[in-house]
């Protein structure tokens, strides 16, 4: 988990704007702010803008999300900032993800009217993935989650691949950017938009990549080995970002 949070944080460059939820995304954004990106602007979909987070919020709307913030507002205004093109990154998860980065957080089953398992639904996920420039997903990787076909496309990735996302009317040049799992980091093929290995975590193998996904993940000729968190990153993460181990686990 420390590795995943650290990788996520490294993707948030200084001067970027990111919408985060609770948990891993929030920890990653805090870590980025305390390391390479002091000028990272953190938004929360419920209306909090750029707080000086004193600790991890439990809710995307709790009072931590406006603590010494720059502005407190409405959910509509946050979403409109996303729609206007202000927001670089969002972080999402989900019960299922497919090869085009489509996410399911609505239901398991084949009959919408009688789901086997009902999940919360989109929340703001569909909006953020539609409207922000780059969607990052942080998730454990296994065959139950990395599926050929999600039971319900709650949140758009590249839809059916190729140009289908833009053709659906979603903003141009937006879409899934990276998927960070316990096995590796993935991007998407620039044309087919299929998921593609970018780097393998130390100790993991290509078989781990393949055996933990129902669909074929593209393996390019060249891929990297993920850089482990530095001592500095770990120190900040453990001591400042998440001293109670809410995200990275209690010691």
């Amino acid at each position, binding site marked *: 988990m420390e590795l995943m949070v650290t990788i996520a944080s490294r993707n948030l460059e200084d001067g970027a704007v990111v919408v985060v*939820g*609770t*948990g891993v995304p929030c920890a990653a954004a805090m870590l980025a702010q305390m390391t390479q990106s002091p000028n990272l602007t953190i938004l929360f*979909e*419920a*209306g*909090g803008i750029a707080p000086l987070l*004193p*600790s991890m919020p*439990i*809710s*995307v*709307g*709790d*009072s931590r*999300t*406006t603590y010494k913030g720059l502005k*407190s*507002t*409405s*959910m*509509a205004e946050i*979403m409109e900032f996303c*729609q206007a093109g202000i927001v670089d990154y969002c972080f999402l998860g989900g019960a299922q993800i497919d090869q085009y980065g*489509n996410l399911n957080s*609505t239901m398991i089953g084949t009959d*919408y*009217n*009688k*789901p*086997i*398992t*009902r*999940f*919360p*639904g*989109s*929340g*703001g*996920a*569909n*909006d953020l993935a*539609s*409207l922000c420039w780059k969607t990052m997903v942080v998730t454990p990787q296994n065959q139950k989650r990395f599926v050929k076909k999600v039971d*319900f*496309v*709650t*949140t*758009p990735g590249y*839809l059916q691949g190729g140009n*289908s*996302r833009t053709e*659906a*009317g*979603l*903003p141009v040049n937006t879409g899934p950017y990276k998927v960070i799992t316990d096995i590796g980091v993935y991007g998407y093929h620039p044309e087919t938009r299929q998921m593609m290995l970018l780097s393998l975590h130390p100790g993991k193998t290509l078989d781990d990549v393949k055996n933990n996904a129902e669909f074929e993940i593209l393996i390019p000729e060249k891929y990297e080995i993920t850089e482990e968190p530095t001592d500095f990153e770990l120190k900040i993460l453990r001591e400042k970002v998440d001293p109670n181990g809410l995200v990275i686990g209690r010691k």
Partner: protein
Amino acid sequence: MSTKNLQTGQGELFMSPNVEDARAFFHQKKKLMTNKLTSVKEAVERYIHNGDYLAIGGFGGVRIPTSLLHEVIRQQKKNLGFSGHVATHDCQILSAGECFNRCDAAYIVGLEARGLSTNARRLFESGTIQVTEWSNAALSWRFKAAAMGVPFLPCRSMLGTDTFKYSAAKEIECPFTGQKLLAVPALFPDVAFIHVHRADIYGNCQIDGILVADDDIAKASKHVIITTEKIIDHEEIRREPGKTIIPFWCVDAVIEVPFGSYPGNMPGEYYSDEEHLAEWLKKEKNPEEFAAFIRKNILETKDFYEYLQLNGGIQKIQKLHQTEHLL
């Protein structure tokens, strides 16, 4: 600029976006600054009828009108509709009472990082609740359309997904750019429950921190019931007009309910009671235990004060106040 291939969501549109009807309603609604103080019991008796459609302010576990939701269970209101606009603990309460049969769902059955509500899921998996899917922004914009007095707003969410397919939104083409957009219909709830920091007896309200969608919900809803941490003098409202979020003419009833967002967070006042919320989730795993829990905490309490007392009273609130202020 063709109009070909424009899709329509197949979900049920529970509430009409007809702005002429809404205008006629708001026209005849009284706009006198009269004393609107009442009790939780009376407000729910008077304004909530079986079958009504309800909007709930706040953010699920933040600034929620808990006392009104409990009273809806106590009075056994049935067949309600509601908008699940980040409905977390509020959805959990209404599910405990099995008070509703339809839902515009953006976020339901979960409590964010805290986990999922076994009981709410059971209900939503039973096939007895009619659900139409939306996103959070879509519901925000549906309230905003109603607040603005237009039958729809265009946006760029939900396109291309099953969330759209099971919604009641429609694709449209922009008359200027020809691009595909999503139109979300105005949502005019029958009643809104909103908890605020401060209100005068006429219903002029101040809210600290995030608004979520409550400015728009108050304007969109036919009737608005306000619970407030504190009643303040009318002169206080006039001292800082920039702070008034909800004006009196939107509001039908005002009830002073200190600690009224408990066990949710009230920004600047008290943090959420995570122990008690965890107890809800735990009890839900055993239907009998949960039924007893709801009897004890809601059905057999006569009001919100008893509920607070059962769960730690002033001392608990003081502790949550300290947590809120990082002490």
